[in-house]
């Protein structure tokens, strides 16, 4: 459903993404791994329109979404989280959730009119939001300010928010990084649950245990391009991948570039 084709993005001399191609099949959970600086987050930003590629294409259901504004790509059904958490910290957990949902009454004129349907829709959104919050175990925090949640809870909320828009494709940038073991277990279970529901997910993660448990397919990036792709078991034994993680490949490549 998602095809990334020969994407390039250079920042001055830094070849952040350098001819990266891969595919995410519908209903699959794909892990994007690679050493720090491999260009994973930049690929996410290219897919979601926050950065325009120098070259290459992003196709969603064969529709070219390259260079579309981020809000339009979101409306096409791509939802994401950020490596560094991005919530609306001074708004409540519930408000954070409701903002992610489809709401025609956010239109200026409609939102000014005293419509009965508007109230009904708000109530429905609250209901749906609470259901999702229950799913991530945050319903007790619905009236707390998002900024007052613990780090792990904020990660969960960001995921719940991304789910609230009922996306076709969910992109998670390091969903399990920096959380304690209990929270890690919670997030692992959450993703397994989403997998059961048949969601399509592309995620970046360094925790190999986590990747092995959840991914159907692993795409390995290094130096801005994909260097390997396959089922987790095979990737684990791939020589180039092991080298990349041990740092040999990167170091040699970096030296060559200079």
């Amino acid at each position, binding site marked *: 459903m998602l095809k990334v084709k020969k994407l390039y993005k250079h920042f001055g001399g830094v070849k952040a993404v350098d001819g990266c191609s891969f595919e995410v099949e519908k209903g699959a959970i794909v892990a994007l791994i690679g050493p720090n600086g491999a260009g994973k987050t930049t690929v996410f930003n290219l897919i979601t329109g*926050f950065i325009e590629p120098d070259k290459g294409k992003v196709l969603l259901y064969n529709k070219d979404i390259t260079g579309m504004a981020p*809000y339009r790509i979101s409306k096409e059904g791509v939802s994401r989280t950020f490596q560094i958490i991005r919530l609306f910290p001074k708004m409540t957990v519930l408000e954070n959730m409701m903002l992610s949902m489809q709401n025609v009454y956010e239109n200026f004129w409609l939102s000014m009119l005293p419509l009965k349907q508007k109230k009904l829709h708000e109530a429905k959104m609250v209901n749906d939001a609470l259901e999702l919050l229950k799913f991530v175990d945050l319903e007790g925090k619905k009236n707390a300010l998002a900024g007052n949640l613990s780090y792990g809870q904020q990660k969960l909320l960001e995921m719940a928010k991304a789910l609230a828009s009922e996306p076709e494709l969910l992109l998670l940038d390091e969903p399990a990084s920096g959380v304690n073991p209990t929270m890690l277990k919670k997030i692992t279970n959450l993703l397994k649950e989403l997998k059961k529901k048949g969601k399509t997910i592309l995620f970046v993660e360094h925790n190999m245990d986590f990747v092995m448990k959840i991914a159907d397919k692993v795409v390995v990036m290094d130096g801005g391009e994909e260097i390997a792709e396959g089922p987790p078991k095979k990737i684990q034994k791939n020589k180039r991948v092991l080298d990349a993680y041990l740092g040999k490949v990167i170091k040699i490549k970096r030296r060559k570039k200079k």
Partner: protein
Amino acid sequence: MLEFFASNYALNLLILICIYVILSVSLNLIIGYSGMLNLGHAAFFGIGAYASALLALAGYPYWICFIAAVFFAGLGGAMIAYPSLKLRGDYLAIATLGFGEIARAVMKNWVSLTRGPLGLPGIPKISFFGLTLTTKFQFFIFALIIAILVVLFVSKIVKSPFGRVLRAIREDEIAAQAIGKNIKKYKVIVVITGAACAGIAGSLFAHHITFIDPTTFTLMETILIVCMVVLGGVASIRGSVIGATILVLLPEPLRFLGLPTSMAAALRVMIYAALLILLMIYKPNGIFGEWRFRHAKSKEAL
């Protein structure tokens, strides 16, 4: 006491308070809810005043003058909103400041339309549906109703689902885009709405004073309105109401000192400056503000 409030002096002040409440609330909508430090608000005020005055002098009924004031000020808002979407922070402030100066230059130099520095005297009294506002008291009631409607309108915007998106945009533009909000559209709507409201204030002002010239709609005027917003608290509607009231009343005691006009004017500005400094030291969020003004961030690292 009652006599005092019925005096022309007091009524003039009350009418001015109504006008400045509209100006500060509408500027707060722009500053507090779109994150734009707009230094051209007096231009929207002026455009509304001129549109209303010119049509009234040409013999049009007041409701047409009123609509024109809203329309042309809103148009001014659109003119500044679209080109400045790409700008932020200090650049945006300078661009809006430039717009304000251009608007004032047009008022001053388009002599065939505006009579330039001579100004427009003899702006007729407001009348609609066969009712003419002849006394100051009647005018005050009218201004009060309009001011209340504007305050209710802006409060409604802020509390609606539309306003919820505005608050989200103010907190994090990138996160708002990631959940499908067209932040440019929201910002443009907010600026046009704020500008249109300032146009209403302009119409009231023109028909209240019955004479307008370009010297009213200066950067100094914008700064005064910005002070009202900051004093009350950015993104606080009731803050803007209080801020406007305080700053309209504050320099009044000076009148009774019998100073020469030039000195009184300078002293007024000094009082505003001193108040702002005190505010920055002791209450940087303003009286009711939970927010300190900051430029909307969006280009920070993803």
